[in-house]
């Protein structure tokens, strides 16, 4: 039998037709929507007089615009208020399930999907959001789409797409203590570049990914798009199945064995073909921090900030632009850079295990004066479980603010924003100019524990020095 990789198997199962322009009409089994990129799509549907074809395959939540310090409507921002009401109405009118704020299940769409068991191996999953790659952690083919495609999905549950090439990325060996999934993916992007993945799906593999928990796999897959890869996935294994057992939308106990036996066939066949294979050595990865204005502009916390005079002309000009924006000095250690804000949250690192890891380490420490430190759980369920375990108290005692679930300061479409040129140590995924709500605000990406270390020292620090193991 032909040996296939997971991408090819899943793609094949979902092919509907060949289109005139050579693209494939691909069936998308799960469609997730949120308030920012769906209202225009519902509008387009109405304009064309089209119904939602498979409302039971679309699930909605609200995440980008929800305030994290108040839950009562109307929201103080009338535009945000209009957006949540519009989504609620569209869901009511069309029969789409909506995890509203009152449901206790609301949260960032990429946290909610897996948590509810909506994300399963072998599915095709799309959402009007580029971090949909997160769901690939389960061995699904999951990708972000634009709003016209949200319309296509609502109307037909299919998309016009061209297949991707597949690059296998193997990370072998053991990670040193204090090195997390976030460091691994920042390292990969640093080495392969922000557009190195254009045209590819990334298959993550090797010892490190085998050993990762599901939440760690999600952190890595989440940032695939930051390396230009629209899709990132990990082959499903026992860990994947165990994570899904008993979740609300997972197969029921009576269907469980059949489901697992189908899922077991999905992993890439040994000896299958890849368009490219790259290897990384886990022991070479350190706690990693971004110094620039794209996620590939990253270095180990022990390194110095790059010096444009030592670089090729093309690299030098982008480095200069980044350093000027970031107000950082070339050639100096990144350690010791003073921060103003610390943000723990987002679809990259706002899950329970992220919060637990930090809470376990920060007891007895205090956030530095003048640093604003906030923790924003990725979903209401993450928040509830964390509170049941007392994590909120630990964070508050250490001087962090404990907020309600949402995207918050990851992109600052809600009231949580940087002010002026504040510098934020952030567990999120994008350090673009102006990303965190102020046109001159500065972002440095790192793992949640590195954010906590920065919050406590008031400057970029090696978390292993603040929290010796």
């Amino acid at each position: 039998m032909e040996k296939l990789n997971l991408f090819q198997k899943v793609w094949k199962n979902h092919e509907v037709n060949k289109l005139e322009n050579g693209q494939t009409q691909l069936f998308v089994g799960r469609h997730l929507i949120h308030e920012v990129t769906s209202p225009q799509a519902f509008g387009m549907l109405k304009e064309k007089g089209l119904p939602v074809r498979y409302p039971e395959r679309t699930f909605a939540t609200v995440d980008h615009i929800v305030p994290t310090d108040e839950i009562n409507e109307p929201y103080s921002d009338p535009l945000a208020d209009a957006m949540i009401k519009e989504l609620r109405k569209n869901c009511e009118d069309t029969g789409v399930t909506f995890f509203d704020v009152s449901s206790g299940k609301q949260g960032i769409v990429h946290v909610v999907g897996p948590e509810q068991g909506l994300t399963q191996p072998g599915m095709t999953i799309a959402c009007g959001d580029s971090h949909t790659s997160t769901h690939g952690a389960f061995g699904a083919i999951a990708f972000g789409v634009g709003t016209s495609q949200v319309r296509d999905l609502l109307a037909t549950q299919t998309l016009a797409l061209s297949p991707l090439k597949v690059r296998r990325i193997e990370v072998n060996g053991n990670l040193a203590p204090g090195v997390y999934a976030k460091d691994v993916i920042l390292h990969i992007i640093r080495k392969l570049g922000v557009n190195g993945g254009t045209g590819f799906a990334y298959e993550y593999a090797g010892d490190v990914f085998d050993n990762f928990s599901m939440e760690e796999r999600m952190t890595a897959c989440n940032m695939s798009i930051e390396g230009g890869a629209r899709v990132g996935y990990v082959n499903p294994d026992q860990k994947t199945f165990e994570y899904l057992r008993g979740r609300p939308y997972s197969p029921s106990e009576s269907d469980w064995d059949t489901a697992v036996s189908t899922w077991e066939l999905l992993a890439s066949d040994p000896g299958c073909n890849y368009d490219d294979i790259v290897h990384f050595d886990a022991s070479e990865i350190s706690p990693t921090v971004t110094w620039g204005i794209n996620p590939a502009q990253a270095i180990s916390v022990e390194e110095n900030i790059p010096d444009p005079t030592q670089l090729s002309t093309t690299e030098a000009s982008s480095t200069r632009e980044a350093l000027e924006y970031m107000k950082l000095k070339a050639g100096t250690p990144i350690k010791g850079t003073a921060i103003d804000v610390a943000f723990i949250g987002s679809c990259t690192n706002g899950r329970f295990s992220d919060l637990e890891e930090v809470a376990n380490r920060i007891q007895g420490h205090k956030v530095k004066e003048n640093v604003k430190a906030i923790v924003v759980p990725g979903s209401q369920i993450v928040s509830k479980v964390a509170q049941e375990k007392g994590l909120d108290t630990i964070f508050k005692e250490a001087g962090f603010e404990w907020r309600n679930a949402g995207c918050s300061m990851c992109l600052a479409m809600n009231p949580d924003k940087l002010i002026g040129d504040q510098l934020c140590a952030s567990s999120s995924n994008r350090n673009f100019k102006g990303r965190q709500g102020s046109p001159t605000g500065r972002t440095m990406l790192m793992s949640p524990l590195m954010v906590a270390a920065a919050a406590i020292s008031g400057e970029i620090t090696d978390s292993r020095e603040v929290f010796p193991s």
Partner: protein
Amino acid sequence: MPLEKITTVTGQGVYVPGDDIDTDRIIPARFMKCVTFDGLGEYLFYDVRHDGNDKLTEHALNNPNFSSASIMLSGMNFGCGSSREHAPQSLYRAGFRAIIAGNFAEIFFGNSINLGMPCVSLDEAGRIKLASMIESDPTLELKIDLVDREIVAGDTHFNFDIRDGARESLMNGKWDPIDELLNNVTSIEKVAKSLSYN
């Protein structure tokens, strides 16, 4: 209603230098608090076109010489970052009908083609030459010819790349796939039924 067959795009150009121009730069997130795309053109590149006091900066898009430009020229990896269709929508609504860059982020590229806005890739030497031609004569008319895969600027011809499928959909007036997708109801239903999940 059949879509327009897009074989050429002509217009004045404007050069917006830089690599990795991301979607947050093209349209900052705070302007996405909207339930329609109308009016997004106004906020195109807002944060680099305005200083902290809402005064206009020296950005090329603020230069009156380029105010009627409809073709943008930029660097590598244009449109990286988010999947927001708000980005190509704001370009389109600000009057742009084609983008020339080194290459494009995938989701941005797809979103743009869906709007009937060709995105064509030009090599570095070509970009440098074309940029200097545009800057020295803002009134210069550019023609992007999808049939011959070339940009014509005065007497100069530049060959460009564009994915075959995208080029064909533009030229055949099939750049918005919705009608074709809607045609295949029976095959869609068949696949839906064949899946191990619902």
